[in-house]
């Protein structure tokens, strides 16, 4: 198996192409620059001044809630949507002047979009057989290439099935093989595992990572699953309402979120409206002694459920009442209601922590936290 893969390392150029104007050599990963891209449907922009640089060979995740513009950004890159303003560069060259066909991009759709009237083999071969006769590889070469790809996506033996005769995960892999067949310069995946169950998702995730390591394509994939993004991507781009909230490695995003939104979207977090007065942090009228300083004014205090301690009677904690308690993975989660305005926060305590009753008073002291301008 390994040897077969080694032989099949991408990118293999199938045939030396005659020099074609305005075409990059196939398969060579290219970097992508997105500058101030705006895309407006009707009135509300789906993309709002999006700027982003993706290195050649990088695996980037676009993460964001539904409707945040992930698919739209991917479609702009593929040339299926034209931005209202802004620039898109592939390898330093303007891409907006290129048609979809000329961009040479592998796109895997949210719905797979397989050709139902064609067998798996012809689906994967389509990008090659669709080439003009001048640059089309020979039948034998196409066949070799398709079989090689079937091997890569672990579907050997299914080449004569029709897409309707495949499971969801298999269709997904056919869609990927079809996109890889043209040796794209950029691979775009729109929620590649969206419709699959958790176990299959995890398997395919690991497998996609391996394929990326073998093929080395510049890859952008869309997901709204933070776990998937954290596990797979070199860098994560967090989108919210058409704007980039943060770009960074999974560690950076997790440990240094740029906004309360990022903190709540990647990992769990609670937020409290606080203010700084005379260099001290207050929630309503009670001081919180966590050593926060800064200019006077309203802030949002954000912390993760597990980054807290319960100081007991020691003053300076955030005082509240427990309103619910439940098991949460390895620990026990408490829902706590704070102060007059009944803010809710979540905290984790060890599973062996003494059980508490509804209405019990607790004092919570964040050990790791972020303050954002409110």
């Amino acid at each position, binding site marked *: 198996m390994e040897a077969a893969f080694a032989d099949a390392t991408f990118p293999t150029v199938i045939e030396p192409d005659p020099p074609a104007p305005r075409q990059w050599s196939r398969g060579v990963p290219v970097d992508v620059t997105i500058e101030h891209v705006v895309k407006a449907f009707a009135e509300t922009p789906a993309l709002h001044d999006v700027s982003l640089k993706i290195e050649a060979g990088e695996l980037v995740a676009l993460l964001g809630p539904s409707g945040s513009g992930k698919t739209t950004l991917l479609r702009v890159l593929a040339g*299926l949507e034209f931005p209202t303003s802004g620039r898109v560069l592939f390898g330093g060259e303007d891409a907006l002047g290129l048609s979809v*066909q000329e961009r040479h991009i592998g*796109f895997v759709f949210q719905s797979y979009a*397989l050709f139902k009237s064609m067998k798996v083999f012809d689906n994967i071969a389509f990008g090659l057989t*669709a080439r003009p006769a001048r640059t089309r590889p020979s039948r034998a070469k196409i066949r070799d290439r398709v079989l090689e790809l079937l091997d890569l996506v672990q579907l050997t033996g299914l080449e004569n099935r029709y897409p309707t005769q495949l499971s969801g995960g298999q269709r997904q892999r056919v869609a990927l093989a*079809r996109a890889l067949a043209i040796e794209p310069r950029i691979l775009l995946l729109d929620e590649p595992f969206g419709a699959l169950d958790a176990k299959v998702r995890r398997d395919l995730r690991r497998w996609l990572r391996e394929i990326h390591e073998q093929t080395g394509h510049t890859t952008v994939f869309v997901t709204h699953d933070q776990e998937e993004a954290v596990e797979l991507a070199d860098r994560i781009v967090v989108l919210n309402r058409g704007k980039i909230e943060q770009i960074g490695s999974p560690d950076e995003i997790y440990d240094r979120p740029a906004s309360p939104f990022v903190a709540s979207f990647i990992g769990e977090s609670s937020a409290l409206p606080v203010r700084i007065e005379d260099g001290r942090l207050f929630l309503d009228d009670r001081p919180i002694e966590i050593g926060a300083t800064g200019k006077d004014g309203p802030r949002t205090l954000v912390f993760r459920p597990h980054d807290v301690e319960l100081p007991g009677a020691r003053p300076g904690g955030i005082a509240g009442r427990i309103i619910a308690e439940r098991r949460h993975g390895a620990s026990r989660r408490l829902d706590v209601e704070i102060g007059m305005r009944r803010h809710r926060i979540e905290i984790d305590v060890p599973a062996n922590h003494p059980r508490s009753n509804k209405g019990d008073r607790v004092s919570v002291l964040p050990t790791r936290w972020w303050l954002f301008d409110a």
Partner: protein
Amino acid sequence: MASGTTWTFRKPSIIPGFGLAFGFTLTYLSLIVLIPLAALVLMTASLGWPEFWRIASDPRTLAALRLSFGASLAAAGINAVFGLIVAWVLVRYDFPGRRLLDAFVDLPFALPTAVAGIALTALYAPNGWIGSLLAPLGIKVAYTPAGIVIALIFIGLPFVVRTLQPVMEEIDREVEEAAATLGASRFLTFRRIILPTLLPPLLTGFALALARAVGEYGSVIFIAGNIPFVSEIAPLLIVVRLTEFNYPAATAVATLMLLISFALLLAINLIQAWSRRRFGNV
């Protein structure tokens, strides 16, 4: 066909009531379709083989049948091509008056065929609007087979358009976009992705238009001129025989039409089944 083989109904479904539904279907079809047709064949059978053969091989009968089926095939073929284009435009493009145009497509269904025939004749007669333009070029449409084909195109168009439209609307845009990202031009995408899915409904539309054209009488007799051996269609020949009180000849021609139609429709159905298996794996 019936004896010796075991009867297997296709795919017994989990939905109950198959027996009832099947029985009803059979009874209904028998009453409405099969019994009248059987009566026709029976009438012809009473004619005796030599007499039947004499009528069938009569040059006038042959000419009428040739014209009827030739013109019908031509009209259905032309409708298949242009109906495809009309349906495509109606489904894919948004332009002012699209809904209105869409409604026009059904008019040939609704119009009494005699009205259509008279209107077409008035237009294409040598002194009509279109006829007078064609006359100087030496093209005669009214009172020729060409006129018959035009009338048959008129009445057959809705069948093609209306069978194609729903299937076209179902075509997934992302599939076309996928083809584009893989480097396929619009034309190649149409030919290799879209056309195969449209082939089964296109054949259905063709078959319906053909069947309708073969049986058409009202609109054709006005524009045809009805010259024996030139522009006399088979349905008209039947009426002519009836007015001559020559019932055996009338039924014989009718039976011939029935046989040929059945053969044609069966052939189209077989092609369709094949193309569904080949292309329409949905």
